[in-house]
């Protein structure tokens, strides 16, 4: 049976229904459902909702700060996991406490906490600021969104525990964590949909990317379960990649495009490319991520099935993954040109987050193309490149997704909280530590993977000593990421208390909305006019001024 196309057909149908419901509402039941949903978000929670602040921006701040802390935790787990690959007994003293740390389990913990804790929380935090701004309204319930951040963090903590010890007191931990995460996701979706229903203007495409990120993830889960594909290896593989293409890719694209435009002061280079990114992300299969979809089976408590795709699935899957290169390149190109504006260089490289956004956009295309080869190889059952799958997956996380989400979070946090980071200098150090650590560390680890593959292919009896040395250097290099994450955490936390206050709300263009007219009151440069969001079609109106002294008006 053709699993991929039939599941995707259900997925597209569910997305179409969601889209129609958002545009048209629920006919005469719209007001009732809106009031009921608001009641569920706030009053129904009883005294719990009074624990959190409902001031504007509090939800975004809470989600982003949690995301920073999870970035530190995820980098630590990944570092220790990478170290244990060449020195498996390094932490054997923990065994006296009943804990047996393993490389694979710690890297798995690092992936879970990076994806759902760091990236997930920073993307949602940035979305909670960007979506209301793009809709010209306020977030429906700041209090609920702030409260839900605690629930989400609890679920990620359970994910970490479940990755180390899957069953505690007879309870399988990861499905419980997934249940809590789903509950938090539903609350966020309802909050966003009610926010959008109050929109005072047409929602630009980055807003739709954010909406389809949260809705698409739910649609992907529904589609795989409705079509019955969850029992097959191909269905589980597809769910892993549909979640990657919706929640992670669309979410990252939405908040990154918004942040690139707001942070640089340049209007989006091409609205058509944003629309193409959205359409392409939903109709194709994103190749980024691991070839091993055990994360899906663990989170949904499914029996793991081997990836054994039929020839029709291999053809359709490979074709749709190759097609995904188009929205990925469109998004990357749009980001890079938007950051540069009309110049050859990034307009304001010292602005918070801009360097991270630039890095993520650069690294996206090579990592995605590498992932395309590895996934096609795995889907076709060849499995010649499976050896580099883990390193490539870590590269996608630490060189594409974390920089993009971190860049968006750094750019949006001052706008939401009203205070800048404590030190630009520390922020720059953190960027270089994280970038250098992740790039060199994972590149050297991948070199070791290639050596391993070559040795396996030649059926060598003994491993090469250089391999362990490479893995050791790779893990030590990756430690820079941990240090960078610590810098970012302390910088952001201190900035909330002692950071320079944001003087005025940003008057630069927001996202894809360009200025239609520009009033020229004093001599200025064309660069400043363009930086304020004007395009070539903007009408510049000189405001008449007189240098003569004023006097009383004669009646």
């Amino acid at each position, binding site marked *: 049976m053709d699993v991929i196309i039939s599941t995707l057909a259900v997925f597209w149908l569910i997305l179409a229904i969601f889209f129609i419901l958002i545009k048209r509402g629920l006919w005469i039941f719209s007001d009732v459902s809106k009031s009921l949903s608001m009641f569920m978000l706030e009053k129904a929670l009883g005294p719990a909702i009074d624990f959190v602040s409902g001031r504007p921006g509090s939800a975004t701040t809470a989600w982003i700060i949690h995301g920073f*802390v999870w970035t*530190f935790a995820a980098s*630590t787990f990944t*570092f*220790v996991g990478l*170290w244990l690959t060449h*020195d498996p*007994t*390094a*932490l*054997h*003293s923990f065994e006296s406490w009943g804990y047996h740390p393993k490389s694979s389990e710690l890297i798995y913990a690092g992936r879970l906490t990076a994806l759902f804790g760091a990236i997930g929380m920073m993307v949602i935090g940035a979305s909670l600021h960007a979506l209301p701004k793009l809709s010209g309204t306020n977030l429906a319930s700041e209090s609920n969104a702030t409260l839900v951040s605690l629930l989400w963090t609890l679920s990620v903590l359970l994910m970490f525990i479940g990755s180390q010890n899957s069953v505690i007191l007879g309870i399988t931990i990861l499905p419980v964590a997934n249940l809590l995460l789903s509950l938090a996701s539903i609350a966020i979706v309802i909050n966003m949909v009610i926010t959008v229903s109050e929109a005072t203007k047409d929602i630009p495409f980055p807003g739709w990317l954010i909406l389809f990120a949260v809705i698409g993830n739910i649609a992907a889960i529904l589609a795989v379960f409705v079509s019955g594909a969850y029992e097959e290896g191909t269905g589980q593989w597809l769910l892993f990649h549909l979640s990657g293409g919706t929640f992670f890719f669309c979410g990252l694209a939405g908040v990154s495009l918004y942040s690139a435009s707001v942070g640089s002061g340049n209007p989006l280079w091409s609205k058509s490319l944003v629309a193409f990114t959205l359409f392409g992300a939903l109709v194709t299969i994103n190749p980024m991520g691991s070839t091993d979809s055990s994360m899906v089976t663990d989170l949904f408590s499914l029996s793991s099935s081997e990836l054994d795709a039929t020839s029709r699935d291999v053809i359709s899957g490979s074709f749709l993954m190759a097609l995904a290169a188009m929205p990925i390149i469109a998004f990357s190109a749009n980001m890079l040109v938007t950051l540069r504006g009309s110049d050859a260089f990034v307009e304001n490289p010292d602005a918070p987050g801009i360097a991270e956004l630039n890095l993520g956009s650069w690294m996206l295309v090579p990592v995605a193309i590498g992932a395309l080869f590895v996934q096609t190889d795995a889907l076709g059952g060849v499995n010649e490149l499976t050896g580099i799958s883990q390193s490539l997956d870590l590269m996608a996380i630490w060189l594409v997704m974390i920089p993009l989400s971190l860049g968006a979070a750094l750019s949006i946090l001052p706008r939401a909280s009203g205070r800048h980071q404590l030190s630009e200098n520390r922020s720059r150090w953190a960027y270089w530590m994280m970038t250098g650590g992740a790039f060199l560390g994972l590149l050297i680890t991948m070199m070791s993977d290639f050596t391993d593959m070559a040795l396996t292919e030649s059926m060598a009896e003994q491993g090469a000593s250089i391999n362990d040395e490479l893995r050791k250097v790779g893990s*030590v290099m990756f*430690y820079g990421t*941990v*240090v960078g994450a*610590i810098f970012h*955490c*302390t910088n952001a*936390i*201190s900035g*909330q*208390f*002692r950071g320079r206050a944001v003087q005025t709300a940003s008057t630069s263009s927001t996202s894809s909305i360009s200025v239609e007219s520009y009033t020229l009151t004093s001599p200025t440069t064309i660069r400043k006019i363009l930086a304020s969001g004007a395009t070539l079609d903007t009408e510049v109106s000189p405001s008449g001024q007189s240098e003569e002294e004023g006097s009383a008006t004669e009646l």
Partner: protein
Amino acid sequence: MVLGFVTMLSFLVLYGILFPGRDMPVVSEVLPMFEGVFDSGIWFFLLGVIFGAFSIIATMLAEATSE
């Protein structure tokens, strides 16, 4: 802190002169508990991680209570 460090070193030297060849009281009994624990280079990095984690917590507490 510097004064404390210098005083500690002075007393250690004095103990070595007064009781040559003898183990340090308490410390010599505690140190064997850590035998086999710090036998890998990863602990050097983990100490940095622990320092970082505490610096994050300390930053939160200090900033929240300083105003």
